[in-house]
């Protein structure tokens, strides 16, 4: 009987242990799956799978970089001499253009004559640049493929253009979004830190128990309001308000995002700051008061320094809350993908981009991978934040 009891206890302990490993497992799985889907973006050709860019055999151009290809298809470059070829104007051709050159009968109902027609086209148009499926080119095609440089981590991070669906070459530059995300977060903190800490001090040190009992549920409630409700409120109230107050041409700005996020980060900052202020030993405070210091002096010289690490934790977790917030920001910042140079212009954040685009990005394509790569960047941001918090906690324990 006793033995059975012991085995049973061990068994339960095993069950408990395995449940406690779930969080670690999840974190690891998140890392694995983000990278699994996202890492394929790098070191791969920016062209869609199986698609090629080809030119006539006579054309001397062998290699182009992504910006040149984009400029050509954007009709900013219209002559081959600009990219090292002969003085001949460029004729753009993508598969959908086939209908303008040949009739449906000529191509065939199941595209059986398409390869031949593509060859005819390049023979009759030596100045053409073609963006077509590699499978549809016939053997002995009268042209050669153009090499396009691969996507690298650095032109992903520091690239300034985000045209994820642009044909034939998409651009995945997330620098404007990184700056946008950081600006919105910074603005939110400038608003939430003073308000949050002041409220926390008021609750912990100034207000009597009755007022505290009102404030506490208010803060809890604020943290419970869904982010999409904040976004809706921001869209209807804050955006027009900002537009009128600053006489702006658009109200969807960094500032609108910052205000909404600031409100959302408030509860985190208030709760953690208040908790840490409360941990100051009563003896310390009483000693200070006994020495003739006022409550204010005690607060500034004793309580706050003692709670310093708790307050920093609160601020950093506030950053974490703000940086990853999605729906509210998506609804109020306007999502323009240029680098914001002030708080009063529209911007685009990383989470909002993922939320807005993932639904329509074809599964497994480059755009899809790029959005997962954005997820990796966001994940790295939050991991840095979490480790900073750990570091602060640990260094406090040692002193």
């Amino acid at each position, binding site marked *: 009987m006793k033995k059975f009891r012991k085995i049973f206890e061990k068994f339960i302990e095993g069950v408990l242990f395995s449940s406690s490993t779930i969080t670690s497992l999840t974190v690891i799985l998140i890392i694995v799956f983000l990278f699994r889907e996202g890492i394929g973006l790098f070191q791969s050709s920016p062209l869609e799978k*199986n*698609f090629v860019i080809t030119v006539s055999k006579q054309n001397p151009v062998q290699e182009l970089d992504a910006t040149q290809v*984009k400029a050509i*298809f*954007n*009709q900013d470059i219209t002559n081959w001499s600009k990219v090292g070829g002969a003085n001949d104007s460029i004729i*753009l051709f993508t*598969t*959908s253009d*086939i209908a303008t050159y040949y009739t449906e009968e000529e191509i065939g109902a*199941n*595209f059986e004559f398409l390869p031949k027609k593509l060859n005819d086209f390049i023979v009759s148009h030596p100045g053409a640049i073609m963006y077509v*499926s590699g*499978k*549809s080119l016939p053997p002995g095609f009268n042209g050669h493929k153009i090499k396009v440089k691969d996507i690298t981590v650095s032109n992903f991070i520091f690239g*300034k*253009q*985000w*045209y*994820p*669906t*642009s*044909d034939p070459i998409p651009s995945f530059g997330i620098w*404007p979004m990184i700056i946008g995300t950081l600006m919105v977060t910074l603005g939110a903190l400038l608003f939430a830190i003073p308000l949050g800490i002041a409220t926390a001090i008021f609750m912990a040190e100034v207000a009597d128990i009755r007022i505290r009992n009102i404030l506490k549920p208010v803060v809890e409630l604020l943290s419970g309001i869904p982010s999409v409700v904040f976004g809706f409120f921001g*869209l209807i109230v804050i*955006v*027009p308000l900002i*537009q009128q107050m600053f006489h702006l*041409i*658009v*109200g*969807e700005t960094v500032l609108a995002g910052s205000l909404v996020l600031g409100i959302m980060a408030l509860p985190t900052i208030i709760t953690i700051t208040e908790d840490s202020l409360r941990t100051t030993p009563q003896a310390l405070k009483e000693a200070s008061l006994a020495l003739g210091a006022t409550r204010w002096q005690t607060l500034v010289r004793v309580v706050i320094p003692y709670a310093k690490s708790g307050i920093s934790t609160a601020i950093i977790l506030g950053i974490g809350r703000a940086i990853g917030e999605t729906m509210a920001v*998506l*609804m109020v910042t*306007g*999502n*323009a*993908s*240029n680098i914001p140079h002030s708080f009063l212009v*529209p911007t*685009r954040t990383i989470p909002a981009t993922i*939320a*807005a*685009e993932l*639904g*329509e*990005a*074809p*599964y497994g394509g480059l*755009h899809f991978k790029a959005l997962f790569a954005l997820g990796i960047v966001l994940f790295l941001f939050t991991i840095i934040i979490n480790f900073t918090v750990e570091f602060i906690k640990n260094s406090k324990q040692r002193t």
Partner: protein
Amino acid sequence: MKKLILMALIAMMATYSQAQKVGFKIKGSDTVLPLTQKEAEVYMKKNPNTSIMVTGGGSGVGISALQSGTTDIAQSSRSLKMDEKMKLNDAGKAFKETIIAYDALAIIVNPANKVSKLTREQLEGIFTGKITNWKEVGGDDNKIVVYSRETSSGTYDFVKEHVMNKKNYATSALLMPATGAIVQSVSQTKGAIGYVGLAYIEKTVKAIEVSYDKGKTYVAPSIANAKNKTYPITRPLYYYYLTSTEKTISPYVKFILSAEGQKIVLDEGYVPLN
């Protein structure tokens, strides 16, 4: 009270579970979504044995769902791309295409804006960011704010191809997650310009006339003008489905093409077929 609510819930559940005899899914373009939703609503009222699931996601998503078999109908605001056709062909899946209605894309500005007509070339300049002030196109001295749909939307592609001569949008364009948000923002912003389906037009925004012949004739977006093909920015809306499931869905498709279905098309602000 508790029991009452519970019973009401069970009763409701029961009625719904009885009704599931024929069911199919429609997925794809957000432009077609409101129309499909309304058509499905009316159709289901008339045929209580049918249940239709309608979800958005974009034209591309609908078409790839058709390929993978996770939807029965793909609704699309553009015709199949060459490679999409090839993929379906490669998989040995025969499909059918039905045009269910047309959609006219209106260029909208704030009602306070003096400008009421633009040429295609001017629109290209505005959307690519080469023209940045309304006074360059005959308006007040006011900065232009471009509102567009998200990059992955079919409408974004359509405008790029048929209005902007395939050039890229200005990076300063504000990308809105949905069409309703564009209407909302244009109505609030004095210098704004955006594009929306005719169905989305409201009194709070002004639709402008456009010219595709370098300013000789300007045409206002309207159902009549789209019908007689004088309004240039018009596109067909498609249903794509596999011939293998045609039997299940053809009553529904027939309903849309019927006079009653086409009346709903008109009521919802789209352009009927005839």
